[in-house]
């Protein structure tokens, strides 16, 4: 039994995939706290779809996917950020236009020029095949960068997330902080897309934060918990992916969903018990 569970670890591609999934899960969990608390879940969802357009274009042009989709993603992120700061256009509508058009463009490019196959499927649903050591190192670099930003900008990020108006009034440069957050979010999506897949990366960002929120009322603890939960989902999901022969994106998201159901159930039971408990004077 144990032998069977450890069997995939003899393959280098699996060990690389496992490292990537764990780091990706943790990174998404960390960034997700800000995404969820700022009510940006839809932006995360949209951005991952927008990046798909860049992914398709760079794959067909033969340029590095990371650079091509990266430039595309950052441009989309800045465009979304710019549009949402202008109040006359509804933010959700603007995001819908920019990102869905980009996703559609990606699909069209693949349909006209591409061979629907491995890379197309991998981009949509995530794949552990062909994860090289370079991929692991690239993701590790992005995760370190994001963690450093969140560590050293912790105070302005927290104030801006909680209360942007007062933060601005207290001398925090909120526009810069928000742009930095969008940059981190775009880099996160871009670097985790390979394992998690365009269509599922948003869930990997949102679920750990939501689960962590149910477990704590402290912002600092929520960041640590969401990171740990995200990493654990990546680790478990990747193992399940191998044994169940399902793409890695769905298994990682389903692991997160299982966490959610368990914690939600547990906190509901706890709340019910508290209501029933006799009041002791």
């Amino acid at each position, binding site marked *: 039994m144990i032998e069977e569970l450890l069997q995939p670890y003899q393959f280098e591609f699996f060990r690389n995939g496992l490292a990537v999934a764990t780091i990706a899960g943790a990174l998404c969990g960390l960034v997700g706290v800000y995404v969820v608390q700022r009510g940006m879940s839809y932006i995360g969802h949209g951005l991952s779809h927008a990046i798909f357009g860049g992914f398709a274009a760079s794959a067909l042009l033969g340029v590095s996917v990371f650079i091509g989709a990266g430039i595309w993603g950052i441009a989309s992120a800045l465009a979304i950020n710019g549009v949402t700061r202008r109040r006359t256009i509804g933010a959700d509508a603007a995001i819908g236009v920019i990102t869905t058009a980009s996703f559609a463009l990606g699909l069209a490019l693949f349909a006209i020029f591409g061979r629907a196959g491995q890379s197309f499927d991998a981009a949509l649903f995530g794949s552990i095949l062909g994860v090289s050591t370079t991929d692991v190192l690239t993701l590790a670099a992005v995760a370190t960068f994001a963690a450093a930003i969140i560590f050293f900008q912790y105070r302005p990020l927290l104030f801006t997330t909680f*209360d942007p108006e007062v933060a601005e009034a207290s001398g925090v440069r909120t526009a810069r902080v928000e742009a930095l957050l969008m940059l981190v979010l775009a880099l996160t999506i871009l670097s985790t897309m390979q394992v998690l897949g365009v269509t599922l990366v948003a869930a990997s960002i949102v679920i750990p934060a939501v689960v962590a929120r149910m477990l704590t009322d402290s912002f600092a603890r929520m960041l640590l918990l969401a990171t740990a939960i995200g990493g654990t989902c990546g680790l478990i999901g990747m193992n399940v992916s191998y044994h169940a022969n399902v793409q890695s994106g769905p298994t990682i998201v389903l692991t997160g969903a299982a966490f959610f159901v368990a914690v939600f159930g547990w906190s509901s039971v706890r709340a019910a018990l508290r209501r029933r408990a006799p009041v002791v004077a």
Partner: protein
Amino acid sequence: MSHAQDLVRFDGVTCRYHSEAVLRGVDLSIEAGAMMGVVGPSGAGKTTLLRTILGSVRPVLGSLRRRDGLRLAYVPQVETVNWSFPVTVGECVLMGRTDGRLLPWASRGERAEAQAVLERLDIGGLAGRHIRELSGGQQQRVFLARALLRSPDLLLLDEPTAGVDARIRHELLHLLGELNREGLTILLTTHDLNGIATHMPSLVCLNRHVVAVGPPVDVLTPATLEQTFGASMDVLVHHGVCIVVDRPHDVALPLPGHVHVLEEAIA
């Protein structure tokens, strides 16, 4: 007249929101050590006045001068706070030190200062609680504590008594009076004429422009109130404190003594 003591000075300030003038030609100076209340009806530009001082609204005409190096702190309306946000009292108060060091956690000195402010405001034991788990008065004090941790020269409060009961209002007034005596300059907005405004040393009656400035006994007159609120009000003086009342003939509901008069009139 010397302006050396002015912390903030408005000279003919006009501010617009979407081409509508919210403030028109406002002249006002806030002197060091002042404690002022801004009164006026909804839409009079009270919050815009605060935002102009904070710098989040820029004048389209006129000039606004702040004393060099002026430290401002702002206490938002309790109703605008996101109470489900995952933040403890301690974490919330420490936001007042966002311009402190780069490390996420507070230094020993910062923790001691935060604790001292919390104790000063009688919420010393609540640092680990979530902000939603507090009473109305305690919630207000958390945001006051956050502002005070900035060691401001000028404290701005937007409708600090909106949605709080009389006891909390009294405690808050007492506390603000104490802070003011210790040298803190305070400017607050309020629509509560009798609960807050009449207890302020100085008032600004605002209705897009400044109608009057001065101590309550001077500015709270039927004429200024009519100009500010567009409604007829009378002012009574009770133990040296003004009490503003609506003029009886403007009140729609008949008082019990008038009932039979009305009945006769109908008959």
